[in-house]
């Protein structure tokens, strides 16, 4: 069966993408940011996921104000990078996993999360920047990607609790998918930042640290944070952080924090990054063998049913 093995939290600041695309990664300002992801790229290279579910938000690229879906799941075979006004970012087109995405959609909708299904979508920096930070700048992305776009642009975004519970439903969906797949889930956006109005430039490192601490140790506490607290304490656009709770909800209650990085600023934003691993690795083999057995049994039963119907 498919299994979510780890979660990655990462900011998705557009200027990080611009720095990559314009060859500025060695400038001291940007080196400070990129150096924080060196270990993460190593971790990802070792982890070799088959599929990445990337929770992100669109920034007036694929969705304007004509349609504002709260949760939109990318079920397409591929997702080209969007033109955000400077031409599409020079990154490879992302290959989707339509079969797993359709399976997730079907499972979570029956679990009462009414997703929008998107069969044609371009993806902006919200998705491509975290991909670069974790996978570098390869000619082809090394895994398939299922985008989950969350509305955090128009208030109100979904609550933190709703996001966390959606994460749990996604996990259940993934684990009921028969193929053996290693899945990593990304929560992106944040951390504290405000880019609009006279209060633009707001950063709250104390809040960010507490958010990261609780993300690992006490995510349920984070699910009780009301929107007003995010906006007041972490900036109007800091509310993007609710997307990290989808990632967290899809993991075990107890996880190992294997890496964390935090720096201020990248452009107008506090950059936060965390890698959380589930603890069931050792049990994996046994469970897989068990799953294979039960699949065989189910197949035998099905064959029997079909055979008896034919009589």
């Amino acid at each position, binding site marked *: 069966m498919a299994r979510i093995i780890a979660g990655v939290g990462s900011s998705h600041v557009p200027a990080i993408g611009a720095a990559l695309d314009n060859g500025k990664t060695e400038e001291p300002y940007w080196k400070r940011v990129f150096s924080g992801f060196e270990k993460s790229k190593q971790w990802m290279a070792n982890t070799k996921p088959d599929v990445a579910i990337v929770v992100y938000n669109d920034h*007036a690229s694929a969705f*304007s104000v004509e349609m504002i879906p709260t949760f939109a799941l990318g079920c397409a075979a591929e997702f080209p990078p969007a033109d955000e006004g400077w031409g599409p970012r020079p990154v490879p087109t992302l290959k989707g996993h339509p079969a797993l995405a359709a399976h997730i959609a079907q499972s979570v909708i029956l679990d009462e999360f009414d997703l929008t299904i998107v069969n044609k979508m371009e993806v902006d920096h919200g998705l491509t920047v975290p991909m670069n930070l974790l996978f570098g700048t390869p000619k082809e992305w090394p895994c398939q990607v299922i985008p989950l776009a969350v509305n955090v642009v128009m208030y109100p975004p979904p609550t933190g609790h709703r996001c966390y519970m959606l994460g749990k439903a996604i996990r259940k969906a993934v684990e009921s998918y028969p193929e053996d797949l290693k899945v990593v889930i990304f929560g992106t956006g944040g951390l504290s930042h405000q880019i*609009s*109005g006279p209060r*633009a430039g*707001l950063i*709250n490192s104390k809040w960010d640290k507490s958010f990261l601490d609780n993300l690992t140790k006490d995510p349920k506490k984070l699910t009780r944070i009301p929107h007003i607290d995010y*906006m007041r304490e972490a900036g109007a*656009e800091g509310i993007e952080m609710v997307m990290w709770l989808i990632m967290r909800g899809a993991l075990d209650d107890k996880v190992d924090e294997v890496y964390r990085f935090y720096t201020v*600023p990248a452009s107008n934003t506090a950059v936060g990054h965390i890698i959380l691993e589930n603890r069931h690795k050792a049990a994996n083999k046994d469970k897989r063998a068990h799953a294979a057995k039960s699949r065989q049994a189910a197949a035998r039963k099905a064959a029997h049913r079909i055979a008896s119907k034919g009589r």
Partner: protein
Amino acid sequence: MAPAQHDYDDIPGTFVFDAERSRQGYGINMFCMSLMKDENRKAFKANEAEYLKRFNLTPAQTDAILKRDYNRMLELGGNIYFTAKLGATDGHSFQHLAALMTGSSQQEYAAMMLAGGRSVEGNRTRSGKNKPGNSKSKSKSKSSAKRK
């Protein structure tokens, strides 16, 4: 009918893009979205007031756009991810817009970000309520941000 009061109206220097502003600002945001196409950018630049007639804007919205009053655009229902497209059409970096909205020079704004950003201390509330009990002084929190 008086507009509804929201808890987030108390956050200083902030125009929350809520469903009501999204409704009011539909024209502003669709105008900004149109600037993603080069032919529209050219048409807008050739005659701004004429181009704006294509969108269902109030006189106040039109005025804010023509004057590049970014805070007023936000107040009247513009969203920053959309209005930033207008800034890009004018050839400005995002930091230029941020400096405009905060009433500082771009240099001052950039220096503030490098020093750890705008502190939340003193910037939480208009009314003075809802202050956390353990707030530190402004200078302290700034220096702690700097160290990171």
